[in-house]
């Protein structure tokens, strides 16, 4: 039977990891468990549940810094930031909602968010979750306390282990305290929508917009048949697929840049503008990948050079028969397949041919047992990854198997 251990303090957390190490009992580490199906199943009889390790250590809006325990819910954090008109600049979407139906908005914990390094549309301008992690405190697989970074914006003191921890899926250490950079919300937001049904033209349009001086903070393409699911009437009214480009900042600047973008891309198609609330609703839907949310159908995420996005998306749609959507100006492509076959070789071959990487974000467990969820490293990188894992968690007690064969035993690669 699976036993759940729920520490409420860092000391209890250390004690739990120490026990697991001493008795060689692997742990499945979860926050609220909202992303359990992202990645491979963990072979462990004990669950280390961090959802009781909660609380705000400090929040100093003027210093743009927030420090919390790892189990603190994102719902609580978003409410706290929103109250001071601030936000996580990397605007993570409702990923749990994408994975499974019936999960409330902003489910999940800050620990889970950082451990999987999830970022939304603004990533193309401000970077990923990892770029906003200022510091952490954790217990490694050696049951030792360790920390890195701090609470200041600019810090090159020692190796940047914060980067290592972000996206490591709990396989190096269990973070208990997380310190984040937060940012004020912009005064104004507007989105230019341009009618465009052709995927490759859409890719080129986004490339042109990103190469202009209009400081586009998000760029996506939504196919005609998916626009309705975003729930924004003005977008639906266009009656075609749309290229969406967001600008944010002071009011006069936003108006000026919208105008410039509409002129720049006048040859692509008719354009419309979304202001404030509509613009926010639109990008929340893009961040949440609403057209493919709800847990139905196999879902891939392909990430590569932005300018190749149109070509990659067109080829994926063409060769798999699936539905596609582009974010990050083409650097991120969502592919939802119609049938039960993951078509992993086909998807990965297309991705790799454009120097991109494919991750199987959503699939039933039996498929995840057969198909690598994450992109496999080449041998030299896999060896380094494996050594890092062994040095931080020599007995392999933290989330064994979660990131699958990406982290192979040294020498196997």
């Amino acid at each position: 039977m699976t036993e759940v251990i729920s520490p409420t303090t860092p000391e209890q957390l250390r004690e739990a990891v120490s026990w697991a190490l001493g008795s060689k009992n692997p742990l499945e580490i979860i926050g609220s468990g909202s992303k359990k199906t992202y990645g491979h199943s963990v072979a462990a009889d004990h669950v280390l549940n961090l959802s009781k390790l909660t609380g705000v250590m400090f929040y100093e809006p003027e210093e743009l810094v927030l420090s919390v325990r790892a189990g603190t819910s994102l719902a609580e954090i978003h409410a706290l930031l929103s109250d001071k008109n601030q936000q996580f600049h990397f605007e993570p979407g409702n990923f749990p909602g994408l994975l499974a139906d019936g999960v409330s908005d902003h489910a999940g914990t800050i620990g889970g968010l950082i451990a999987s390094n999830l970022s939304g549309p603004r990533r193309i301008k401000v970077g990923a979750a990892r770029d906003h992690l200022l510091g952490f405190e954790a217990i490694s697989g050696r049951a030792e306390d360790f920390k890195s970074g701090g609470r200041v914006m600019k810090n090159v003191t020692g190796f940047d282990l914060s980067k290592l921890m972000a996206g490591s899926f709990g396989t190096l250490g269990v973070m208990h305290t997380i310190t984040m950079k937060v940012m004020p919300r912009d005064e104004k937001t507007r989105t230019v929508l341009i009618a465009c049904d052709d995927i490759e033209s859409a890719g080129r349009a986004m490339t042109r917009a990103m190469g202009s001086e209009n400081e586009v903070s998000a760029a996506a393409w939504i196919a005609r048949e998916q626009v309705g699911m975003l729930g924004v009437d003005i977008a639906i009214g266009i009656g075609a697929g749309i290229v969406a480009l967001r600008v944010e900042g002071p009011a006069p600047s936003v108006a000026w840049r919208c105008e410039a973008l509409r002129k720049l891309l006048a040859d692509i198609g008719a354009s419309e503008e979304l202001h404030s609330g509509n613009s926010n609703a639109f990008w929340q839907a893009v961040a949440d990948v609403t057209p493919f949310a709800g847990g139905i159908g196999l879902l891939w995420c392909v990430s590569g050079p932005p300018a190749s996005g149109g070509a990659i998306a067109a080829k994926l749609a063409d060769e798999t028969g699936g539905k596609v959507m582009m974010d990050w100006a083409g650097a991120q492509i969502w592919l939802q397949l119609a049938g039960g076959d993951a078509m992993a070789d086909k998807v990965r071959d297309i991705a790799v041919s454009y120097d991109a990487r494919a991750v199987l974000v959503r699939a039933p467990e039996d498929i995840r047992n057969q198909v690598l969820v994450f992109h496999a490293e080449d041998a030299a990188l896999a060896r380094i990854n494996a050594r890092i894992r062994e040095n931080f968690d020599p007995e392999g007690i933290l989330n064994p198997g979660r990131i699958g064969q990406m982290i192979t035993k040294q020498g196997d690669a």
Partner: protein
Amino acid sequence: MLRMPEPDQSTLARRKDIIAAMRDIVPNEGGVIVDEDQLRPYECDGLMAYRQLPMIVVLPENAGQVAAILKYCHTHKVRVVPRGAGTGLSGGALPMADAITISMMKFNRVLDIDWDNRAVVVQPGVTNLGITRAVEHKGFYYAPDPSSQIACSIGGNIAENSGGVHSLKYGLTTNNVLGVEMVTIEGEILRVGGKGPDQSGYDLLGVITGSEGLLGIVTEVTVRILRKPETARALLLGFNSSEEGGNCVARIIADGIIPGGLEMMDAPAIKATEDFVHAGYPLDVEALLLVELDGPKVEVDYLIERVGAIARECGAVYSRISESEDERLLFWSGRKNAFPAIGRISPDYICMDGTIPRRRLAEVLTGMQVLSQRHGLRVANVFHAGDGNLHPLIMFDANQPGELERAEAFGADILKLCVEVGGVLSGEHGIGVEKRDLMPEMFTEDDMKHQERLKLAFDEDELLNPGKVFPTLHGCGELKTLHAREVADKFPDIPRF
């Protein structure tokens, strides 16, 4: 006094064999330097207080040669010190008597400008400014701009995770690098990242950046470039106290304005620079802010007004807005020449680099004055006020016995003060040898051991840049052992279901 690892006598005894092997690998004219007079220019980097002749210097020209050199060094257990342009301020490229210094300055080509992906691929010896020079004709630039940007190499920027005056808005090197090719000590060529945003596996790019030459030697770099803002304007704002100046900085940022540059200088720094470059700085204020707004003209004009209004509310006693590009550059000329300006009024100076939470600024400045009196040395302050990164310049005369030691002790006290108020030892210059022995002020033994375990995954024999960053190197055996005290066999007494 700084202690470096003892030279390995067996390596020194093999010097001739090593030279011969290096000449086989790098047969190019001038590729292997062995004569003392030619080794002399490599004896230090920007931290000139510490000097050591390298055993030899090798200047490879391609990744294959770097791989062969490192493979040889790995097989024969020879230590290696990587070196870029040698402008680093923390001694990260300080040579060792028994080590090969590998200079990367022959890697000086721009390989690919990919306008559509807004990415540039360069060799690591290309200068920081060289990247901007290669793309500015189409209105692009590379954002991080350390003050040494005319000379420093992008490979060195990767090693130190360099910042600059624009990092508040545009980030450090780590936020602007997309990929690297790196050779490991085993001679393997790794490619990490690329023109897209994601890698798979652990974020190796993130840890390679800022690793001070301890993990490998970077042989190719891909960075993102940005469109140059349409326009930029600057304000000079004077205050009667650093509290008021600091408060103004906090108010600007709290208002949602992230300026391209947000610099502050204290009275001694203002006077020294004004005497030197005559930028028109006011001499009767205690703190001077230089605020630069960049973006579309309509945005900049709007924000200049808002920042001006905030400054008035914060008690600014002096305010001037640049009305032309020449005037903007004049404002900057003072700040950019602050270091040489201090060099004019003091025979020697050292520059510290701590970062603090911004609201502790006034307290730290007061603390610095107390320390200044205690150590009997003058200090002038310039800082990247927006991100709390201080650059205290401690003035001394190296010809006076004991003054260097006093200056170093003063610097160490300043950094301890930074850590005490919640800050860090280095914001952008790196640890190197300069701040190595202060690492325990910030990190526990276990913190440092985990950092070293990352190092071990790349370089188990600790051949790459020994003596840097970590005050004591724990042996591989100690780092890999699981200690009995670490494990508990009792099931933990904590809530479960």
